């Protein structure tokens, strides 16, 4: 097996057995990336120097027998996550030359394990989008079909893992930005409970919805990484002080007797038949594994997307105010202060951030806030209750991750059709519950399709247990051919 095809666990074993060195492993991936990523464009920057230093530290630790499970493993980080001294553009021109002045708490925790940073990955500008086409630095392509999108907004990270340029990667998930591209790219994508992982050092999109997400080839790898970065943070009051279960030791728990709910609203019209079949096969597989399944209703599902597109833009309209051409990032000159603001933001932001700033400003304005923002916050309570009610009867829910497999670049030119790509993922963010997308099958035309598992608040271990059992039983390799 080639090095780039290894899982994190397999690579770790080889490193610990000294079959390979961290330097060789990251070197092989970076060499591969040099030719591959010209077309794929998963990365906005490779951090070769940093990778060398990281690999040296990892190799030294391995030599001294103080290696940890992620020591020496090459990883990629979405370019809206801060690592001190390294660029963090958020895919926007307005942060074109911005270098982080500090490191995100989650990344600090990860770095304690001495993994090897390969680079920063592409994304829709400020994580606004579902295709990575909104990046100010050009789109990322789908490793399974270069004419298609990888999904988004964490499309770069998904494509990096799918194409073997990194063995795992981080993204952010505000409405599906990890799970949806994971489904499009045939990798595992995990979004934790809101409050499970510190947001400190994640460039904020929707503060009440954002979470760090993890991509890897296997659920097992994701569980290990989640274990490393989860937990409370004194720099983030919303990262709750809830105990983090020992995810890896719970992986092999029995699925037998697990109650899995099928939300009927997620199988209504508009699903691609091939996707529907793959999800139904997956449900059957869970039954074969001993789970009991039953239908459940999440009656307010139809309001989730509308709710999201009020709450999110309102938070965006404030969160993006700091990009004003005054202290850092892109600044366009002007004769007056007002002109500097207007010019910097007009030229610095792309169309989607501007659209959402305008929607959010409108929806939070005096006289409109009650009708929009406050109503949306009430709807959020109902949607949240749908999930908590469902979890009184079920341990997990299963849904398609997306209604269709990866679509063509340029196919969804109107914003609304793009927003609909998140229809099955966005409800989880509104409710704050964790979810994971796991590759479940391929379409006739060779595109991967994922299923989404949903767990109650702070019950991530259930996702990992069920997901791991599913993956083990599904003897199917997801490996892109990487042809144009």
């Amino acid at each position, binding site marked *: 097996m080639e090095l780039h095809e290894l899982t994190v666990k397999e690579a770790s074993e080889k490193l610990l057995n000294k079959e390979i060195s961290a330097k060789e492993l990251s070197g092989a991936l970076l060499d591969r990336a040099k030719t591959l990523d010209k077309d794929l464009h998963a990365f906005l920057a490779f951090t070769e120097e940093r990778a060398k230093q990281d690999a040296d530290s990892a190799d030294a630790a391995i030599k001294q027998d103080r290696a940890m499970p992620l020591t020496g493993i090459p990883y990629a980080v979405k370019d809206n996550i801060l690592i001190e001294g390294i660029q963090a553009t958020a895919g926007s021109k307005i942060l074109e030359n911005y270098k982080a002045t*500090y490191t*995100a708490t989650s990344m600090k925790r990860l770095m304690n394990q001495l993994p090897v940073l390969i680079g920063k990955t592409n994304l829709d500008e400020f994580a606004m989008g579902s295709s990575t086409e909104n990046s100010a630095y050009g789109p990322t392509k789908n490793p399974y079909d270069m004419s298609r999108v990888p999904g988004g907004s964490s499309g770069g990270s998904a494509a990096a893992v799918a194409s073997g340029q990194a063995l795992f990667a981080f993204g952010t998930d505000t409405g599906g930005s990890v799970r949806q591209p994971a489904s499009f790219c045939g990798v595992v994508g995990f979004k934790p409970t809101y409050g499970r992982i510190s947001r400190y*050092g994640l460039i904020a999109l929707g503060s009440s919805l954002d979470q760090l997400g993890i991509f890897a080839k296997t659920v097992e790898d994701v569980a290990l990484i989640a274990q490393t970065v989860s937990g409370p943070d004194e720099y983030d009051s*919303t990262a709750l002080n809830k105990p983090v279960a020992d995810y890896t030791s719970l992986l092999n728990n029995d699925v037998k007797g697990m109650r899995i709910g099928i939300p009927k609203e997620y199988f209504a019209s508009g699903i691609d038949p091939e996707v529907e079949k793959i999800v139904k096969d997956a449900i059957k597989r869970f039954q074969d594994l001993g789970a009991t399944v039953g239908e459940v209703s999440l009656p307010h599902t139809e309001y989730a997307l509308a709710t999201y597109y009020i709450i999110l833009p309102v*938070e965006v309209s404030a969160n993006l105010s*700091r990009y*004003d051409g005054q202290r850092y990032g892109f600044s366009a000159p002007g004769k007056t202060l007002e002109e500097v603001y207007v010019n910097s933001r007009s030229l610095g932001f792309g169309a989607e951030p501007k659209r959402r700033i305008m929607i959010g400003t409108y929806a939070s304005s005096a006289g409109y806030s009650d009708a929009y923002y406050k109503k949306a916050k009430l709807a959020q309570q109902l949607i949240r209750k749908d999930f908590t009610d469902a979890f009184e009867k079920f341990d997990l829910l299963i849904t398609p991750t997306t209604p269709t497999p990866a679509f063509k670049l340029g196919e969804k030119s109107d914003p609304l059709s793009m927003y609909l790509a998140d229809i099955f993922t966005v409800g989880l963010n509104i409710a704050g519950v964790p979810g994971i997308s796991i590759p479940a099958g391929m379409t006739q035309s060779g595109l991967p399709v994922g299923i989404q598992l949903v767990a109650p608040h702070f019950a991530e271990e259930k996702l990992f247990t069920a997901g791991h059992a599913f993956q083990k039983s599904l003897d199917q390799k997801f490996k892109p051919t990487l042809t144009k």
Partner: protein
Amino acid sequence: MSYEPVIGLEVHVQLKTASKMFCRSKNAEASRPNQHICEICTGQPGTLPVINKEAVRKSLMVGLALNCEIPKYSKFDRKNYFYPDLPKGYQISQFDLPLNGKGKFEVHVNGQLREIGITRAHLEEDAGKLMHAAKGDYSLVDYNRAGVPLLEIVSEPDIRTPEEAKVYLQELQNLMRYLGVSDADMEKGHLRCDANISLRKKGEKSFPPYKVEVKNMNSFRAVERALIFEIKRQTEMLDEDKTPAKETRGWVDDKGITVSQRSKEESQDYRYFPEPDLPVLEFTPEFLTELKRELPELPQARKKRFMEQLNLNAADAQTLVGYKELSDYFEEVVSEIDDWCKADNIELSSDEHAKFVKLAANWSLGQFLALLNEAKLNPNDSKITQENFAELIKMIGTGKVSQLSAKDIFAKMFETGEDPSNLLESMGLAQVSDEGALLAAVQKVMAANPKGVEDAKTKGERAFGFLVGQSMKELKGKGNPQIISDLIKKELDK
């Protein structure tokens, strides 16, 4: 036409905490711009606020002292606007659930008690400071102040005169110092005041259809002067049947006028919404009970104690408690007096003890306060130690030095910090109480002034005083006046 001013004040108090409101940067005086800053208070991408518990506690203490209703829940909100001193493009403030709700504050205006309603007191973060280049077309920003905890205390429009406004501010400043929550120094910007003022016809109860906000007043005096100016300006307009504009005006101290800054005909929409990065605060009854227990003695309680325990009159007690540091100093002097009274077996409840305390109060409020004001010093910064102060009081009370000589000694003590008994010697001001020496002087004066003696026998008090004065003069001011008058009386009766 006779009008009544309707005045409300918005006071911003910088809270004294170790770190800023939402980050770990120091909340302290800085020696250079942008010294106490970090990624959070400069609004770097990805940063999050964390609430400073001490700032919340101090805000609630102010609320308790102002008799405010404290809600069960309180939260922070984002107030959105663009300005270079505001790093995030929004200020974290409080909108509909402030830490402190309705309250009241009693102030003392010309011996009258006035109750001023408090609308609310909420917690927010301060902005940075713009520094405009003298030459050149740019401004610089100093973020040392950005993120410093700021308590905004909003009064009801209950204030009726500029003097009342000034007293309200002074007493509020004093309260902040009693609570130890802020230095509340107006000149340093720890305490900032905006005023809303309008006029209505005397006797009317409804509020005028306009309101003028006055900013940029950097001292108590400026607040009073600006309001006096506004009353005159608005009176003149109303007399001409014009309604003053709804606007913000700035006080120009050196010119003594206010000038229009911006119209408030259309109110700015700050698009407040709940701060998603911060949890809602919930206060348990136990927490509030504990906080109440921790409240220090406040001015009015202290005044009552001064009157009841130290027999001070209401006016003296009020003046003392109105200046916290002076009250503290005075109490330390009294405790020194208590110590030697105990040592000398003088009953603490006795008239003798009360006489010393009264002397200490008089000297604190008289000579000491005058010298402090002249030198612009705080009591604790003066060179006179409480021990030396008490010693001088003892010397006066026991007749070792005359009040007159004591003034010279006190002035010297204030200048050099020297011990009063040493000064008494070196300045040769020891009071002569030796009857032999005094009698010699009295007899000499009486012999030289037969007319004076005659007058004193027939014309009484005033003529008698002449003899005392002449005797004092003979003794170079060092004679004990009580003994001198006793001796003159005896001589006249002979």
